[in-house]
């Protein structure tokens, strides 16, 4: 089980960051996106390599209107 943006995701332990982003409809080349796993930034370059361990908290963020 993985926490992706606050929602539980089951049966996907060990998938890569890139695969998780795909879940969100984000293609690997997408600009304006950043990912943190357990409070650490995962650089764009590692998305395809970096596997996400069970129980990890993943935050996938992008630009929203803000002051």
């Amino acid at each position, binding site marked *: 089980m993985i926490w992706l943006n606050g929602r539980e995701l089951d049966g996907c332990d060990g998938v890569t960051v890139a695969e998780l982003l795909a879940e969100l409809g984000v293609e690997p080349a997408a*600009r304006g996106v950043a990912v943190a796993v357990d409070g650490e930034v995962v650089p764009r370059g590692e998305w395809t390599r970096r596997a996400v361990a069970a129980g990890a908290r993943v935050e996938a963020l992008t*630009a929203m*209107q803000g*002051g």
Partner: protein
Amino acid sequence: MSAADPLIIAGRELRSRLILGTGGFPRLETLAEAIRLSAAELVTVALRRIDPQAPHSLTEVLRERGVDVLPNTAGCFTARDAVLTAQLAREAFETDWIKLEVIGDERTLLPDATELLVAAEQLVAQGFVVLPYTTDDPVLARRLEDVGCAAVMPLGSPIGSGMGIRNPYNVQLIVERASVPVILDAGVGTASDAALAMELGCDAVLCASAISRAQDPPAMARAIRAGVEGGRLARLAGRIPRQLHAEASSPFEGLAEL
């Protein structure tokens, strides 16, 4: 000094002295039009969780408009969250620039002086160009400059309050001592507030709600742009002193004896 002089932050030249916040606009089309009429070159954005449902066009709108993104750390209440958010913003937008917000209270959204200073110092050490949203405390503004911030952004009044510049004296004290650009951030409600900020010696104004939540945002974008330009021109033109009594603008000599 001339009205045409660009605003220089961390070595970068900006012709526009109005920075636009993108929050609060009802529709992206309205935001796009407001950007055009404000002539802003730099606009703020927040970082939030990707919403698969949401049409993903904000960044496109900004790209079309040819403006640069200034990400903020809005919503962070600790130095640690703000620093991490800044790192994510750098990753997402490929910019070292960050509008640093560390909030201390949900109701007033006022900055937390101590956490802000800690976050600023860390981000500067990590090579960020830090633009901190701060109170109108002249000492805190000085500390932020001392730790290497590229500008200081004191508030006029709470975010979105439209109360204008509650304490012009503090803004004046900040300007007197600052050797980095001073950008009035938060509190502007209308054109005269923006003009006053510049007349007090601020180098620029950052404005979101006053424009985005006005009844006619694009018209208010023009209005506040004019206020910023008028205020800067007035500052450079050297205003007349204030005095209690009158000073005739028509001569008394040569007056007819009727």
